[in-house]
C-alpha cells in the first residue's frame, strides 16, 4: 500500500467516529419511531413495505438496528434499495426508529414476558365518511407473575380506542384492544398506541396509520372476524376458509397477508389471494387457513392484510390441541425470531425467498456481465 494512504487512516477513523457519535447523539422518541415505521412524509414507501407489518419477525434483519442509529444510518447509505429513504429520514427520525426497534426487540425476544400482536395496524386508504373497519390488538402476559398495566394511551389523533384490559393481567391471561379510524377529514394520520408501564417493563408501542382519501377507493373485507378451529389432537390438522370481498367503488390490489402473534406457529395459510391480486368491485378470493398443532396447548394468532384500499379488519385465529391421553400441557412457546444472522450460508440475498429484489438485481448484473463478456 502507498505510504500516503496510511497517512489518511487517522482522518478516516476520526471521520467514522464523528459520524457514529452524531448518529447516537440524537434525542430518541420511540413512539414517533413507531409512526415512522408505517408512514413517512411525502407518502414514500416506508419500512413496512420491505420489513412487513410485524417487525418482531425480523424480516430482512431489521432488528439489527435496535437502539443502533449508526447502524441504521449506515444501512441507508449503503443499501441501494433503501437509498431513497435518506431524503425522508433525518438524523432525528433515524434515532426515533432505532429506539422503536429496541422496544420491538424486547417483545420479539424468546423469553419475552409480554406479547402484543399484531405489531402494527394499517387501516389503508379510507374514503371520507366511510365506516372504519375494526382492528383488534391482543396483549398477553407470558410471564409467571401478574402484570400491572397502566391505561392504554393513543399518542396522536385520528383514531379511537376501546379495551377490556384490567389493571392487573394474570399470568397467561390476555386482553383485547380495539381500534377504529376517524374518516371525517381527508389526509394521512398516524398515531402510536402505548401500553405500559409498570416499573418492571418499558411501555409497549404499536404504530397505527390510515390515509383518508376523497377519491374512489377499493375496500376489502373478510367474511369473519374470527376463525375458531376448536380442539384437535396434536398431530391432526384442520383447514378453514376465509373469503375476502372487494366492496369499494374501485378495484383493490392485495398486498401481503401476515400471520402475527406468539401462537402463530401451528397456523399457515394458502389460497387464491396472493399479493398483487386485483379484485374488481364485487369479486372475491378465498384463503385457506390450516391449523396443524404438533404439540398440545392453545394457540392464538391474527391474520392481517395490506392493500391499496381499505384493509380488512384483523382476523383472529384460535385453536387448542390435546395430547392423545387428553392431558393438556402448557402452551407451546412462540417461534423464535427468524433473524438467522449467520444461518443460510454465503448468499447476498435471503436463502429462503426466491422472489427477492437482491436476487433480481444479481440476475440482472449477471446477465449484464454475460453480455459484456460476449462482446
Amino acid at each position, binding site marked *: 500500500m502507498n505510504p500516503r494512504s496510511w497517512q489518511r487512516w487517522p482522518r478516516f477513523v476520526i471521520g467514522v467516529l464523528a459520524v457514529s457519535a452524531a448518529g447516537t447523539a440524537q434525542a430518541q422518541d420511540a413512539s414517533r419511531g413507531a409512526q415512522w415505521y408505517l408512514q413517512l412524509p411525502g407518502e414514500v414507501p416506508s419500512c413496512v413495505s420491505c420489513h412487513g407489518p410485524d417487525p418482531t419477525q425480523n424480516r*430482512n434483519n431489521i432488528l439489527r438496528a435496535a437502539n443502533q442509529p449508526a447502524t441504521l444510518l449506515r444501512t441507508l447509505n449503503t443499501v441501494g434499495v433503501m437509498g431513497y429513504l435518506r431524503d425522508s429520514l433525518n438524523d432525528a427520525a433515524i434515532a426515533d426508529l432505532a429506539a422503536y426497534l429496541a422496544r420491538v426487540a424486547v417483545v420479539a425476544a424468546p423469553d419475552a414476558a409480554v406479547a402484543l400482536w399484531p405489531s402494527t395496524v394499517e387501516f389503508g386508504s379510507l374514503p371520507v365518511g366511510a365506516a372504519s373497519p375494526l382492528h383488534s390488538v391482543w396483549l398477553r402476559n407470558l410471564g409467571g407473575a401478574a402484570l400491572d398495566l397502566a391505561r392504554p394511551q393513543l399518542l396522536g389523533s385520528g383514531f379511537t380506542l376501546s379495551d377490556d384490559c384490567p389493571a392487573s393481567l394474570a399470568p397467561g391471561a390476555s386482553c383485547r384492544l380495539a381500534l377504529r379510524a376517524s374518516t371525517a377529514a381527508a389526509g394521512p394520520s398516524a398515531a402510536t398506541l402505548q401500553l405500559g408501564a409498570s416499573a418492571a417493563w418499558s411501555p409497549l408501542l404499536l404504530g397505527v396509520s390510515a390515509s383518508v382519501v376523497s377519491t374512489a377507493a377499493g375496500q376489502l373485507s373478510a367474511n369473519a372476524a374470527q376463525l375458531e378451529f376448536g380442539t384437535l389432537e396434536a398431530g391432526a390438522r384442520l383447514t378453514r376458509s376465509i373469503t375476502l370481498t372487494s366492496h369499494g367503488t374501485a378495484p383493490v390490489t392485495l398486498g401481503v397477508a401476515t400471520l402475527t402473534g406468539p401462537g402463530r406457529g401451528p397456523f399457515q395459510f394458502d389460497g387464491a389471494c396472493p399479493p398483487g391480486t386485483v379484485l374488481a368491485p364485487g369479486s372475491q378470493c378465498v384463503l385457506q387457513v390450516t391449523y396443524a398443532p404438533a404439540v398440545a396447548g392453545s394457540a392464538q394468532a391474527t391474520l392481517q392484510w395490506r392493500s391499496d384500499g381499505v384493509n380488512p379488519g384483523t382476523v383472529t385465529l384460535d385453536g387448542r390441541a390435546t395430547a392423545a391421553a387428553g392431558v393438556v400441557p402448557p402452551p407451546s412457546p412462540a417461534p423464535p425470531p427468524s433473524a438467522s444472522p449467520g444461518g443460510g*450460508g454465503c*448468499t*447476498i*440475498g435471503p*436463502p429462503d425467498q*426466491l422472489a427477492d429484489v437482491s436476487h433480481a438485481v444479481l440476475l440482472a*448484473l*449477471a446477465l449484464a*456481465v454475460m453480455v459484456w463478456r460476449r462482446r
Partner: protein
Amino acid sequence: MSAVALFVLLLLAPLLEETVFRRGVHAWALRHRGTAARRWWAWPSRVNWLVALLFAAAHLLRLPPVLALAVVVPALVLGQVYEMTGRLWPCVAAHAAFNLVWLGLNASQPA
C-alpha cells in the same frame, strides 16, 4: 431446510454471485488494474483482495458485520481459484461447496 433454500444456496447464489463478482468484477479489474497470482500457494493478488472486500461488503445486506467480514476468507479462495483456472465453473462449484459446509455446520448446532 426448504427446497427453495437448498436451491438458492447450492445453485442460484453460487451461479449469480460468481458470475457477477468473478466473471464480472474480478475479470474487469484484472484487465485494467493488476496481475493475477501465478501459483496456487501465492499470496492473494491486490485485485483478489479488492474483489473479496467488495464481495464481503455486498454480504452486509444480509449478514451482521462480523460474519460479512468473515466472508473475505472464502472469497479470497474463490478469487484464487478464478485467477489460477480463469474459469467460472470451478468457482461456482467451490462456492456451492462452501455453502454446503456452512449448512452442515448449522445443522449440527442445537436449535
